[in-house]
Structure formats: structure tokens, C-alpha cells
């Protein structure tokens, strides 16, 4: 079923058309631009739903499109979706319209903002659907430019610093990916095709050269670890989050963080199965540090957004732990956690944005007793907080439980220490909830208005998904289960 539908191409490039149209419209018509941008994310959402419906989990790679792009280097415009990318694509097309709604408050340089945002969406969709290594790399770097400007121009007080730091970290990582890509291309007689690359590497001289493979895997790991972010490279995330506008924080935490783990699962693991096993313990240790260190740092934060940023670092630690375990539960748990973390953190950042629009500051101790006259808002925050600390009945719990079930047989001690993460997470989340919502009402915010209709429209779908996946996780598990089994098969059997 070569290219029977151009679904993926349309989904990826529709926002780009939107971006061009936004650029053309005169910048005076601010609301019209916002509506135009919103309208141009809907077709991708519709195609995303269509993709979910059409996708048959057992059939592996689908919606494949393959067109030669640079014949000399036999680079192809080769895109397709399998169990791993379908949930991520759906998450992207779901969050983007919500984020556009969330950025209704942007009023300076509106045209630039929404054009860059739509370009960013194309970049993200491209990364998740690319099956050609070069195409993956182009989309991977294409995302950097809009993100740099979105944080740099519309961000908070220290936006330049945060934007350049984000740009430098990611670029530093991705150049190693570039070297790895070229070396693989050279050693396999010239091929960028991710799907077939594994056999080609195995048969090529590279297959036996363990040292070179080790360096290549390390290069790739560094590139993706910066994006996750894994322990030593995580310092850019709190700054980027604190300075980025609300909608960009949602995209950054909801989707961009997943690209790190997606990259490892899509590229690093299948290409170098033996290395994946060798590095497993290392990644597990880093995961453990992420979980515990992230949680403890979160507890020390006074800025709400920085707290959510560190909590993201902690939650992504679970994904890494599940990934490193290479057991069925671990892998399924990891991918489910990627999706769940996307929806939960998106909700958290939207909620932080709502309170920031009203109180114009994010200092946790500055609030108090908001639950009194902000019932809807405190209800949503309560749901989001409990989902992120892994309360059963909500999606966060299922993925955390699976990760622990999967990682326990392989890394017993690490999992036991990781379990302490659950308690620390519960501690800092509830403590934050108490300082902001419980206790006597802070008279300064006595007259804060509750969630507006627009804000509720943003939050309801996410809340619905969090509860739905908490009660019926098989809806999404069945999608990526066969693909993940296949991946484990490849990695463990080598």
C-alpha cells in the first residue's frame, strides 16, 4: 500500500499553508488573523481523527508516501506512521488548536506569532511522520527557528537569555546527530531510509565495529537526551518555560519533550540494538536521577511555571526508565506516559496561564485560598494535579504503574528508589495545591473572575482524555502495543 492516501502530507503541510496566508493578511486585522490561524489547524485535527480511525494496529507501517527528493544522495521524501507515531501525531494536532485558543491574549506582532506557530506545527508533524533520516533531521532543526523567535519575542522579562539558551542547547545536541547520520550514510553504502537501515547497518562493516557504534549511539543519545531533557542537560527547560508565553510552554512541554524519547525509540534503538542493551543501565540511572532530582528541585521552586517544568523533568524520567527496561510493560508504559504527560502537562500550563493572565505573577506563596471563589478553576487544577501525581482512575497512574511493573524485574534497586519519587511528587504537588488553593483567602485576589468560556473549552477536552485513558487505557494501548512488541523483539534479539 504504497501511497494510497496523501493524508499525512496534507496533515503536515496544511498549517504551512495557513502560515503563508496569515503572512499575507494585513497586520491590522488582529482577530481575523487569530481566527484564520485557528481555522487552519482544524483540518489537521480532522485528518488526525481520520488517521486514528483508519489506523489498523496489526498492519505496522501505514499512510506511507515515498517520493525521491535528492537523487544523488538518494534522499527521499519518505513519510509514514506506525504505532509509535500515531499517538504523537494525534497529540500534536490536538494540542495546537488548543494552544491557539490559549494565545488569544497575544496582541503585539500578532501576524508574526501565528505564522511562526503554524510553521512550528508543520515542523513537529514532520518530525513524527518522517521515515527518512535526512528528512527527520531537517524537520528536527526546522522547529528550532520558530521556537527561538516565539520565546525570544513574546516571552517574559529574560526572554532573550532563555531563547538563546534553548537554541544553543538543542543545536549543540543536533550537530552530533548530523555526524552520526553522515557516518551511517557512508558506512551503509548510502541510505537514509530508517526502516531498512537496520538490516543495512547489520550487514555493513559498521555492524561489527562496536567502538564506532558506541560513539554513534552516544552522539545520538546526547542529541535526544538534551531534548528529553535528561539529567545533565536539563537546565534550559526551567528557563525556557518560565520565559515562554503560555501557549508555547504548552507546546514545549506537551510535544517537544516527547521528541527526545521518540527519537531514541525511532532511531537510536532500532539502528543499534546491541548498544541499546549496553546503554540500558546508564539510561536507567539517568532516569532515576531525573525522577528523584527533578521532584526534589520542584519542591524548592517558588515560581509555579518552574515547578511544573521540573515536574516535567521528573515525569520524563519515568519514560526513560520504561524505555531502558526493554520489557513489554516498560515500553508500553513509556509510550503511554509520553502521551499522558503531554495531555496532563498541557493542562497544567494552561491553568498556570489562566492565573497568570489574572494575577500577573506566578509566585506560589503570593496566592492563597483561591478555591473559595474560583470553584471551576480549582476543580480543573485539582484534577490536573492529581493526574500528575498518579492518582488511579486518571491516566497518569496507568503509565506509571506499567513503567514500574516493567522496570522492576530488570532494575530492581533503581525501581525501588524510583518508587520514592511517587511520594515526593505527591508531597510537592499537594503542598503547592495547599499554598495556592487552600488556607484563608488572600484578600488581594478576592474578586478574581473564574474560568471564562474560552478557557473552559480549552480544558474540557484534555480533562476528558485524562479521565477516559485512566478508565479505558486499552483505547490507546492497543494502537502502539504491536509496534512496541516488534521494537523489543528487534532490540533484545539484536
Amino acid at each position, binding site marked *: 500500500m504504497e501511497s494510497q492516501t496523501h493524508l499525512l502530507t496534507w496533515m503536515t503541510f496544511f498549517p504551512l499553508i495557513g502560515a503563508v496566508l496569515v503572512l499575507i493578511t494585513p497586520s491590522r486585522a488582529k482577530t481575523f488573523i487569530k481566527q484564520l490561524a485557528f481555522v487552519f489547524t482544524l483540518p489537521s485535527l480532522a485528518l488526525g481523527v481520520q488517521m486514528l480511525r483508519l489506523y489498523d494496529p496489526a498492519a505496522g507501517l501505514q499512510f506511507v508516501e515515498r517520493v525521491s527528493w535528492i537523487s544523488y544522495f538518494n534522499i527521499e521524501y519518505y513519510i509514514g506512521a506506525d504505532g509509535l507515531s500515531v499517538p504523537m501525531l494525534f497529540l500534536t494536532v490536538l494540542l495546537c488548536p488548543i494552544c491557539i485558543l490559549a494565545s488569544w491574549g497575544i496582541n503585539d506582532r500578532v501576524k508574526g506569532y501565528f505564522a511562526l506557530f503554524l510553521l512550528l506545527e508543520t515542523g513537529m508533524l514532520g518530525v513524527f511522520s518522517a521515515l527518512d533520516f535526512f528528512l527527520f533531521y531537517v524537520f528536527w532543526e526546522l522547529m528550532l527557528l520558530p521556537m527561538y523567535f516565539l520565546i525570544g519575542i513574546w516571552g517574559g522579562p529574560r526572554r532573550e537569555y532563555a531563547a538563546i539558551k534553548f537554541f544553543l542547547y538543542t543545536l*549543540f545536541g543536533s550537530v552530533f546527530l548530523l555526524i552520526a547520520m553522515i557516518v551511517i550514510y557512508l558506512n551503509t553504502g548510502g541510505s537514509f531510509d530508517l526502516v531498512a537501515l537496520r538490516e543495512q547497518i547489520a550487514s555493513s562493516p559498521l555492524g561489527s565495529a562496536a567502538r564506532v557504534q558506541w560513539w554513534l549511539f552516544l552522539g545520538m543519545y546526547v542529541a535526544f537526551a538534551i531534548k528529553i531533557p535528561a539529567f545533565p542537560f536539563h537546565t534550559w527547560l526551567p528557563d525556557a518555560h518560565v520565559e515562554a508565553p503560555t501557549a508555547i510552554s504548552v507546546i514545549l512541554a506537551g510535544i517537544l519533550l516527547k521528541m527526545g524519547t521518540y527519537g531514541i525509540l525511532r532511531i537510536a534503538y532500532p539502528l543499534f540494538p546491541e548498544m541499546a542493551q549496553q546503554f540500558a543501565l546508564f539510561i536507567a540511572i539517568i532516569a532515576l536521577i531525573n525522577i528523584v532530582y527533578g521532584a526534589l528541585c520542584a519542591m524548592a521552586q517558588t515560581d509555579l511555571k518552574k515547578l511544573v517544568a521540573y515536574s516535567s523533568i521528573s515525569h520524563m524520567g519515568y519514560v526513560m526508565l520504561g524505555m531502558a527496561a526493554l520489557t513489554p510493560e516498560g515500553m508500553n508504559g513509556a509510550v503511554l506516559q509520553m502521551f499522558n504527560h503531554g495531555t496532563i502537562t498541557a493542562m497544567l500550563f494552561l491553568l498556570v496561564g489562566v492565573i497568570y493572565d489574572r494575577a500577573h505573577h506566578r509566585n506560589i506563596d503570593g496566592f492563597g485560598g483561591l478555591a473559595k471563589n474560583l470553584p471551576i478553576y480549582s476543580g480543573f487544577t485539582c484534577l490536573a494535579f492529581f493526574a500528575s501525581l498518579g492518582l488511579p482512575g486518571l491516566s497518569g497512574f496507568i503509565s506509571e504503574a506499567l513503567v514500574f511493573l516493567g522496570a522492576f524485574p530488570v532494575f530492581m534497586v533503581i525501581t525501588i528508589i524510583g518508587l520514592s519519587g511517587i511520594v515526593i511528587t505527591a508531597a510537592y504537588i499537594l503542598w503547592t495545591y495547599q499554598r495556592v488553593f487552600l488556607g484563608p483567602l488572600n484578600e488581594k485576589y478576592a474578586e478574581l473572575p473564574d474560568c471564562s468560556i474560552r478557557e473552559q473549552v480549552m480544558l474540557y477536552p484534555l480533562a476528558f482524555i485524562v479521565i477516559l485513558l485512566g478508565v479505558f487505557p486499552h483505547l490507546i494501548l492497543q494502537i502502539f502495543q504491536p509496534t512496541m512488541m516488534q521494537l523489543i523483539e528487534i532490540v533484545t534479539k539484536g
Partner: protein
Amino acid sequence: MGNIESLAYFIPELILTATVLAVLFADVLGGEREGFDPPANFAFVGCVAAFLAHFTLYSLPSTPLFNGILIHDPFGAFFKGFFIFCTGVTTAMVIVSREVARFKKGEFCVIILCVCIGMCLVAASRDLLMIYLSLELMSLGSYVMAGFSRKIGPSEEASLKFVLYGGVSTGIMLFGISLLYGLTGGTSFEAVRSALAGAGSGIEPIAFLALLMVLVGVGYKVAMVPFHFWAPDVYEGAPTAVTAFLSVASKGTGFALLIRFFFSVFMQPAEGGWATLAPLHFDWGLTIAVLSAITMTVGNIGAYPQTNLKRLLAYSGVAHAGYLLMGVSLMTSTGVEAVIFYLVMYLFTNMTAFFVILVVSESLGTERIAGFRGLWRGAPVAAFMMTLALFSLVGLPPTAGFVGKLYLFYAVLQQKLYWLAVIGVLNSVLSLYYYARIIKAMYLETSSETEPAVHSSPLAGLILIVMAAPVLYFGVFWNPLVEYARYCAHLMQ
């Protein structure tokens, strides 16, 4: 091939010579009526004609010309096209800008056309004497052009430094050539190489000394590290159009000479590239590789504290010379392809950047980065083009710069020079910061005083679009450019 028959392969240079004469006459006869300025326009038209004529060269077979003193091959044809295109753009810049005094425009065009002829001869020369002659022709023209700017003070200082530094370097190179002549007795590359190949291993130290001295002359042209000191001052002092011309065209000449001279004289073709001659068993490729690494790093680090844009782009030019040297040091045909590909990309990127600086500095009166603050409000198109050029200089995907660097790293990694690739890659990350500072100034910072709007003529807008479009187009559809670069990489021994 006799002199008369060779003329058939010499059409672009002939057109250029005719243009020189025409411009001289126009300058003498008329000066310029309001708005219409014959000498500069004739020069531009001449360049366009020569450029179109140069396309006929690709189909002709590669043969020595004028009894072996010049040679015609795809490599030479490419560089001719390259230089003529640069000259055309520079003349267009001069027409559009007010930097060169109106009454001097005629003389400027004459000189730049002579320099262009000199460059075409350098790319095609196959004889020691011919190299020295064409190099001198080109250099003398450049020294004078460097002094044409209205900015009294820095302009004179720039040309003085340029003439002194150039003179010494060319002198040292000449001494090297004389040693080479002494060693081999012949002046044509063919004779020199066969003599060197035949000679015993005793000549090895002298040969390397000669090679090094010629390298001094070429290194100065290319702005390689130990010989790059002139570049920042001259780039800052010279008129922006000349700076652009120097940074692209004369750097291109340097590489043409580097590849033509060193690969023909000290190497014989081996499979997939070149190998050093039997008796000279020193590996000068490694030396060039080390120098390229140093050049990149010094260029990138040097650019950090700069506040003047042209000076910053000078250091960036040094860094990009480092990247190009990576390709040369490999001594493989892929390396040469990568260098050619990168040069084309570098041409469009640098010309766009310098053109924007030209337009903006004229209306804002400053070349400092601070002057660019809040540019996006005054001139959104110029700001976008500048951003495109800067991201291409860094080497980010949608732009041609990325593909150029990709091709270079592909060539480097093919030879398994992992250390060089890593240094090159880290350098491009390092370079991001000072390019991004300009973008930050343009977009992220807001200018305090209400700066005058940047007004530019529609012609300037057209040129900018012509320059910037390929940076994006080749970033996405770069298959034809690869084919062209592969074709042009054929050097005839």
C-alpha cells in the same frame, strides 16, 4: 592549441575587455545625466553579457589554450562564471548605493572589470608566470578599490594596510615561485610536475619551503588564520560593495588558485582524488586540515566581541574560509565538489547579508549592531532577508548553508577525519551565538529613539530578492546544484 584558435574559448574575457573600453569612453564622453549613469550601467550590462557567454564554455572540451599558458576545463569555466557574477552584483550594488562618490563610479567600474579579468585568468592559468601576472593584476585593482569609500580616514587606512600586506605576501609567494623555477627549470605546471616527479628525494625540504611560501601568498588571499590579520581592518574600511566583493570573489580566487596550483603541481591524480608525488612524501593535507581547524575557531571566537557588522562578517569570512579549507585538505574529488558547492552557497548568502548592511547603513548612517535594533519595524523585508542569510551562515536546515556544510562534512567523514568533523560541527554551534546577536538586535530588542524609516529603491529590493531567493531555494531543492558541482569538479592536469 594556437593563439587564434584559443580565442574561441576566451569569449567572456573578450566581452569584459570590450566593456572596459566602453566604460572608459562613456566616462570620458559624458558623465551622467540625472538618474542615468552610463559607465556603471555599461559595466553591469557587460557583466551580464559575459555571464551569459560563459555558459557556452561548459560544452567545449577541456584543452590547454594559448600554447599551454592557460587551460580551459569545467573547473575554470565555473570560476569564470563565479567571478563575473560577483562583479555584476558588486557593480549593481555600487549603482544603487551612494557609497562611492558619483563622479568616481566610472573609474570604479573600470577597475573592478580589470580585477574580474585578472581573476578569470588566475582560475584558468597553468603557468607560474601567468599566475603571478594575473594575481598582481587582480591585487592591484583590489588595493585601489579598497580606498574608494566616502568615509575619509578608515578608507585610506584600509587600502594602505591592504597594499602593504598584499605586497609583502605576493613578494614572498614570488620568491617561492622562483625557488620552484630553480628546482625544476620550467614554468608551466606540466614541466614543473614532471621535473618534481623525476627528482630525487633530496629536493624535499626545498620543495616544501617553496610550497609554504606560495601558501603564504594564497593564504593571504583566502584569509587563512596566520595570514588573516588584514581582513577585519580592510573589510571595515572599504566600501560595503568592495567588502562584499573581497569576501566572496577574492576568497574564491584564493581557493581556485589553491586547488589549481597545489593539486596540479605537487600531486598526480589518483583514484577518487589526488596523491602527493612520489619523492615528496610529506603529507601537507594534514597541515591544511590543522590550519583549517585553527582558522574556523579563531574566526568564530574572534567574532564574539565585535560590534561593527562589517568587522563581524570579516571574522565570519575567516571562519568560513576554515570550513572551505576542510574540503581542500581532503584532496579528494568529493572535497572539491563540496568546496564548489559551498562557494556558490556562500556567494548568495554573503551578498545578501552585505546588501542588507549596505541599504540599512546608508539610511541609518551606522554599521554597528546597535543600529540594527528594531529593524523589523522599519524594514521587515530587509530584516527577514538578513535573518535568512544569517541562519544560512550558521548552517540551519531550511537554508542552503546547512546543505553546504552537510556536503563538506560528508566529504570529511568519507575520509574518516572524525576529529575535524567534530571541531567543524562545534564551530558552527559556536557561530550561532554571534549571528543570533544580530537577529536578537533586529527582532527582540526595541530601538529607543524613533529611527528614520529605511528607504531603498525598488532596484535594490529586486537585487535583494534575486540574492536571497537561492539561499532558500537551494536549501530545499538542491539536487541540480549537486549535479552542477559534480560536473565542475573536473580539473584537467
